[in-house]
């Protein structure tokens, strides 16, 4: 250990004297600073806009005046997806999942105003988020820092001198790993402090649960990723005869990890589990609502059945004799059937999303970048799971809200009476404002067991491999 510490000190001293390392570190730090700053600005602006819009829509809802509850159900309201404070670090899928949804009776509207719609096509290459810098550019810095860790010693002849001092290659390797890890930690300290400060300063009534645990877990995952890339770089350098070969091997790994494998997996997922177009998806829902899920029970038949059941149940001859407004019950029955149809189609769509995601999760076992990217989005609550959870909770809210309107119509108005009946502020107030909290961190952890296993296995396997190879390798050969 003492030997490794001494080697680490020497490596740090040499790295500090090498301008290239300093320049690259500065570039990474500046990029992290810019991404954090822009992330914070975007978070603040969007959060303010969302809060303002949500307040305006709530006021609109409360101030809509007296009217029939079903008209109010079509008057509807808007729900805005709140930003989580960690989205300033990892934008995740927020750019693509839309920010608001219109809620009304009969229809499950799609999320609107995806930020990506307002960006140029360049957005396809990814926005500059701090997570992106750490996931993609940080490994590049590690590669440039460590690719020659052993090859340069071999080329200079210092490795023979080092080995002749009676120290093992294992000690040398761990000294180098320690040095690079410390250098990167030092680069990251101001960045981490910046995140913590911004999280504290910008923490509006936030929707994210377990923020502290999430930050700690994010830090641990990124540390493991950085550590893993350092071990990989040192290992490749140890096995390479010359620095150029080590650099080429590591750059190839980087391209495979960050570009080729993720794109291939995404394309494979899309080919194996193709998603229907929005047009087809909407048309299928409309058709099933119209003709019934079995294609044989159109709306008119379903309503006739309902009427028959109720007349039998209440032992009356006409809907006028029912102790409630049949129109209200019919509305709710139509609504519930629509929900069932929506659940079937949304379930199928979700199943495809999950299959595509599962493929990505399995691919993360081969690719630590995919593992970290998924974990980072998950812990930052900007992933697909959080988005789906939000959509489910919004849909539940819509159903409760519409049911309240329909139930009021059924219980308090008379059959055939529509414009004569109205409700007012008390009713609108009884519809509580929508509040969202992300799933707990424990639920998130369960979703990412494969990715967490991948990071753990990659780190452990590389450590074992490094120890094995350093014990087997002589300083005179690669």
């Amino acid at each position, binding site marked *: 250990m003492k*030997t490794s510490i*001494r*080697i680490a000190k*020497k490596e740090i*001293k*040499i790295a500090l*004297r*090498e301008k290239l390392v300093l320049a690259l570190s500065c570039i990474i730090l500046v990029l992290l600073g810019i991404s954090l700053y822009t992330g914070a600005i975007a978070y603040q602006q969007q959060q303010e806009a969302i809060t303002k819009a949500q307040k305006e829509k709530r006021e609109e809802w409360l101030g809509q005046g007296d009217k029939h509850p079903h008209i109010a159900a079509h008057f509807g309201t808007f729900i805005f997806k709140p930003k989580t404070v960690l989205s300033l670090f990892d934008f995740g899928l927020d750019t693509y999942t839309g920010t608001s949804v219109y809620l009304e009776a009969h229809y499950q509207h799609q999320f609107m105003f995806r930020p990506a719609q307002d960006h140029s096509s360049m957005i396809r290459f990814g926005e500059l988020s701090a997570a992106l810098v750490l996931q993609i550019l940080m490994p590049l810095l590690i590669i440039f820092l460590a690719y020659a860790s052993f090859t340069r010693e071999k080329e*200079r*002849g*210092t490795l*023979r*001198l*080092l*080995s*002749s*001092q*009676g*120290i*093992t290659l294992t000690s040398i390797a761990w000294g180098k790993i320690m040095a690079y890890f410390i250098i990167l930690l030092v680069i990251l300290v101001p960045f981490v402090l910046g995140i913590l400060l911004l999280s504290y300063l910008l923490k509006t009534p936030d929707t994210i649960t377990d923020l502290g645990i999430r930050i700690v877990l994010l830090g641990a995952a990124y540390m493991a990723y950085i550590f893993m890339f350092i071990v990989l770089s040192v290992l490749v350098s140890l096995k390479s005869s010359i620095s150029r070969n080590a650099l080429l091997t590591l750059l190839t790994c980087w391209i495979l990890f960050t570009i080729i494998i993720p794109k291939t997996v995404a394309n494979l997922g899309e080919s194996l589990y193709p998603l229907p177009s929005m047009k087809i998806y909407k048309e299928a829902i409309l058709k099933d609502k119209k003709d019934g899920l079995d294609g044989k029970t159109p709306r008119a038949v379903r309503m006739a059945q309902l009427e028959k059941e109720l007349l039998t149940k209440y032992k009356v001859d006409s809907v006028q004799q029912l102790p409630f407004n049949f129109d209200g019950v019919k509305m709710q029955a139509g609504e519930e059937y629509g929900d069932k149809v929506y659940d079937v189609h949304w379930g199928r769509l979700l199943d495809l999303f999950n299959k595509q995601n599962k493929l990505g999760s399995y691919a993360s076992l081969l690719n630590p970048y995919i593992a970290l990217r998924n974990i980072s989005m998950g812990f930052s609550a900007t992933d697909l799971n959080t988005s789906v959870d939000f959509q489910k909770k919004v849909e539940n809210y819509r159903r409760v809200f519409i049911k309240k309107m329909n139930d009021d119509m059924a219980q308090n108005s008379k059959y055939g009476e529509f414009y004569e009946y109205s409700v007012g502020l008390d009713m609108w107030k009884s519809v509580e404002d929508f509040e969202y909290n992300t799933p707990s961190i424990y639920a998130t952890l369960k979703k990412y067991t494969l990715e967490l296993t991948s990071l753990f296995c990659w780190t452990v396997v590389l450590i074992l491999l490094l120890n094995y190879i350093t014990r087997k390798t*002589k*300083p*005179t050969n690669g």
Partner: protein
Amino acid sequence: MLKTNGLTKKYGAFTALNALDLEIGEGDIFCLLGANGAGKSTTINLFLNFIEPTSGNATINNLDVNEHALETKQVLSYIPENLMLYPSLTGLENLDFFCGLGGKSYSKAELETLLQQSGLQTDFIDKRVQNYSKGMRQKVGIALARAREAKVLLLDEPTSGLDPKASNEFSELLLEMKDKGVTTLMATHDLFRAKDTGTHIGIMKEGVLVEKFESKDVSFQDLERLYLKHMHN
């Protein structure tokens, strides 16, 4: 102190070292002469455990270098033909670093004294090694051997490419260390240096030690004649 028993190294069909039997006593300077590829560096690499023998063994203080690699390296110091240090560190920093690896700790003043005693000019001590000549780097190597209180010196053509003055200084330092009981195995092409510095001389050819004698028993002319005879045969 240094001993080999039937030490052999083969690379496929090529025999780099063939059944070398050698014994070097404490305080001796054994110079191995021979053309390139004769097996001199292979012998040194085998003592350093940089390569594994095909058969036979090499021992330092009766410890097999292959089985006790770390222990045997604790007592030796190695200076290759072109001692490479860390160019962005100063001579003093390099010395401090390598001493520390061997578990030796010296003050800055002590390190400066060691470098000065090894012949390094004072104004170069705090300069980065990238500005050093080969001779200066070899002197840092000697300072390191002194600092580590090495009992064994393994030198692989250490004076190759040095100017006569630097070579002479280097030889003087070796003799100083010999007087302190340091055992040296030096591979060299320099017949004059071998005769002048060595206590024993061996001539190697195609992996075989073809001649072995004490240097006091031959004149420089005899040594040259003997060497050329073996090289021409």
